[in-house]
C-alpha cells in the first residue's frame, strides 16, 4: 500500500509538471472502482459509464487541487459520488428525497436468516453463475444508503474511515449500515441457495 501511494504521488507530480499522458496510468487501477461507485448510485449501466467518464475527466482537470493528505482513491471516490448524485438528481427531478437526507431508522428486521444447511453447501456453489447474478440483483435492490456503504466497503474495499469520509457520514453510521446491508444480503442469498442446494432437511425438519 505504501509503495502504491509513493508511486502515485510521483506520478501525480510528473503529470502536474506536464507529463499529462501519465494520467492514463494513474487512473488505470481505479477504473473499476469509479464505475461501480457511480453505478451504486445511478443503478443504470449507460448512466454509470457516462458518469465514470465524467468523473475521470473531472479528476484530470482538477488534479492540482488534490492534496496529498487524503488518499487519491478517497478523493476520486468523492468525485464519483458527487457525479452520481448529480445524475440522479437530474433523472429523478426535484421532489425526490435526496440521498444525503436519508437516514437509517430503527425499524426493520436486520437479523440474519438462521440456516444450518450452509455448511453442506459445497464451495463449488460459489462458482455458480446464477449465484453471482442473484447477488448482483440483491445488491441493486438494497435501499440506497445501504447499497452505497456496502459498495464502498465490501466491493471496493475502502476502510471504515475512508467510506465515512467519501460519503460524508460518521463511522458509526458506516458500521450500522454495513451490518444491515450484509444481513439483508445474507437473508436474500440463503433462500436462493436453499432452493438450489441438494435437498437436505434443516435442523428443524422443515424450511426455516
Amino acid at each position: 500500500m505504501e509503495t502504491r501511494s509513493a508511486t502515485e504521488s510521483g506520478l501525480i507530480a510528473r503529470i502536474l509538471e506536464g507529463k499529462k499522458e501519465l494520467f492514463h496510468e494513474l487512473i488505470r487501477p481505479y477504473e473499476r472502482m469509479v464505475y461501480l461507485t457511480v453505478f451504486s448510485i445511478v443503478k443504470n449501466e449507460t448512466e454509470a459509464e457516462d458518469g465514470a467518464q465524467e468523473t475521470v475527466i473531472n479528476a484530470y482537470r482538477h488534479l492540482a487541487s488534490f492534496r496529498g493528505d487524503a488518499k487519491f482513491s478517497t478523493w476520486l471516490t468523492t468525485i464519483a459520488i458527487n457525479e452520481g448524485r448529480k445524475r440522479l438528481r437530474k433523472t429523478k427531478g426535484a421532489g425526490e428525497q435526496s440521498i444525503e437526507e436519508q437516514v437509517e431508522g430503527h425499524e426493520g428486521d436486520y437479523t440474519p436468516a438462521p440456516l444450518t444447511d450452509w455448511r453442506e453447501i459445497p464451495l463449488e456453489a460459489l462458482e455458480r453463475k446464477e449465484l453471482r447474478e442473484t447477488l448482483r440483483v440483491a445488491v441493486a435492490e438494497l435501499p440506497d444508503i445501504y447499497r452505497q456503504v456496502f459498495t464502498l466497503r465490501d466491493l471496493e474495499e475502502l476502510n471504515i474511515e475512508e467510506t465515512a469520509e467519501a460519503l460524508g457520514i460518521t463511522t458509526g453510521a458506516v458500521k450500522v449500515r454495513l451490518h444491515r446491508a450484509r444481513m439483508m444480503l445474507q437473508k436474500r442469498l440463503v433462500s436462493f441457495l436453499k432452493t438450489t442446494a441438494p435437498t437436505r432437511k434443516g435442523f428443524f425438519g422443515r424450511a426455516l
Partner: protein
Amino acid sequence: MKLDCKHVWEHISEYIDNSVDAKLREDIERHLEHCEICSAILDSTRNILVLTADDRTFELPVGYSKRLHERLKEEIEKSKQEPPVGGPK
C-alpha cells in the same frame, strides 16, 4: 459472559471486520464452537463477501476501459493547447 444468538448476530459484521474488542471476540468464538446456527450465519455472510469481491460478480460493460481511455486521450490532447493541468484560471 455467555452470549445468546441474537447478541452474536448483532456483532457479526464487526466480528468479520475484526473490530470487536478481545473480550467480545473470545465470547463470540466460544459461542460459535457449540452453535451451528451462528456458525452457518457467519460462514454464509463471509461467503457473500468473498463472492462480492470476485471480479466476475460485478462486471464492467464490455469496452468500458477502452472508451474511457479514448475519451481521456481526447481531453489530454485538448488540454495541451491550454496552460498546465488545473493551473491558475
